[in-house]
């Protein structure tokens, strides 16, 4: 290894053919965070929101139906697995695939709520996630063209392979579009949805992919 990886020296590298999955101190900590949160999503029961009627004793309890609970839990777990994959993968095309999987799972978590405002917001976010695939996969294709490889290990160990700055910017913009959920202006609309652990999964996965893309951009 010629250059240093800012995420630390990998503890071990798992090989899937040409795709290396590497566990460095940085990626391992993010991976464990995603794993713990996925376990929370598996065992947690959804929050039950209560609206108090002003000036009286009455209140509305919002119920989450069993079908909705099951679907949102499934999406949250899938989102957790996708974030875990995105945290440790050492291949750029594989990374972009995991990122778009995170994006579509986030759409699924919020789209299952039967509320007009929430579904409108989820629809807008879905369109952003859809259009973000153009810069995302475009960046992966440009990296393959300008360096001839997709493996991050090759890119950081071989100093002569340089990715142009504008390509890195495209990659970051694509990840921003896919993981926009917590920074989304319609946050209040989406997060009005009852069922706390699942909605937090969508914030956490976005946070994790942002942290990971910083490492990727520094490494390549």
């Amino acid at each position, binding site marked *: 290894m010629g250059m240093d990886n800012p995420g630390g020296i990998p503890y071990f590298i798992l090989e899937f053919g040409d*795709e290396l999955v590497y566990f460095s101190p940085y990626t391992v900590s993010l991976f464990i965070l995603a794993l713990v949160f996925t376990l929370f999503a598996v065992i947690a029961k959804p929050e039950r929101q209560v609206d108090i009627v002003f000036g009286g004793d009455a209140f509305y309890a919002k119920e989450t139906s069993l079908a909705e609970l099951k679907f949102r839990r499934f999406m949250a777990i899938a989102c957790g697995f996708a974030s875990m994959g995105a945290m440790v993968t050492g291949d750029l095309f594989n990374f972009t*695939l995991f990122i778009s999987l995170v994006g*579509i799972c986030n*759409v699924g978590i919020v789209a299952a709520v*039967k509320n007009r405002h929430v579904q409108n917001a989820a629809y807008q976010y879905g369109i*952003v996630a859809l259009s973000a695939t153009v*810069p995302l996969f475009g960046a992966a294709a440009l990296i393959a*063209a300008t360096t*001839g490889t997709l493996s991050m290990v090759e890119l950081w160990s071989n100093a002569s392979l340089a990715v142009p700055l*504008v390509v890195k910017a495209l990659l970051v913009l694509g990840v921003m579009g896919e993981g926009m959920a917590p920074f989304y202006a319609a946050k209040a609309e989406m997060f009005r949805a009852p069922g706390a652990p699942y909605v937090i999964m969508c914030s956490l996965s976005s946070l994790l992919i942002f942290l990971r893309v910083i490492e990727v951009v520094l490494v390549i």
Partner: protein
Amino acid sequence: MIIQRISRIISNYEMIMPIFAGAVTLLFVVAIFSLPLPYYEEQLYPKTYDPTSPLNPYDRGGPPFIQIDIKEQYPENSPMAGYVTSYLTPFSWYMANTTLYLGTTIVAHPGGILDEILYNTRGLDTVVEPTILFIAFAIASYLYRKG
């Protein structure tokens, strides 16, 4: 003041798509101005186009069950690559013999071409790709039934 005005504009969730599209357009303009980007001659997965082959562009050549040399990043990780460059079902065989466009129908009928690079050396990608599709189908069917 200016922050207030900006946050008022972006608090409308119908504005998020135009703003993102604007950012993408801006960056694409920058990208177009920074052309030509250097092209790395020694590509990892070189493509050769043979317009006369019906398996184009998935034609990796070689007789079946005899290992041919396929360029990989880490050859030691996939020692079996290059043995089965293509497997054609009778229907695919018929299509390959009658038309020139079997390579473009790889996703449109079962039992077509086994691409060594796609399925052997980059197998994790092929797992994640259908997962994205399945998740999308799950969301669509849930919304259709319950929505």
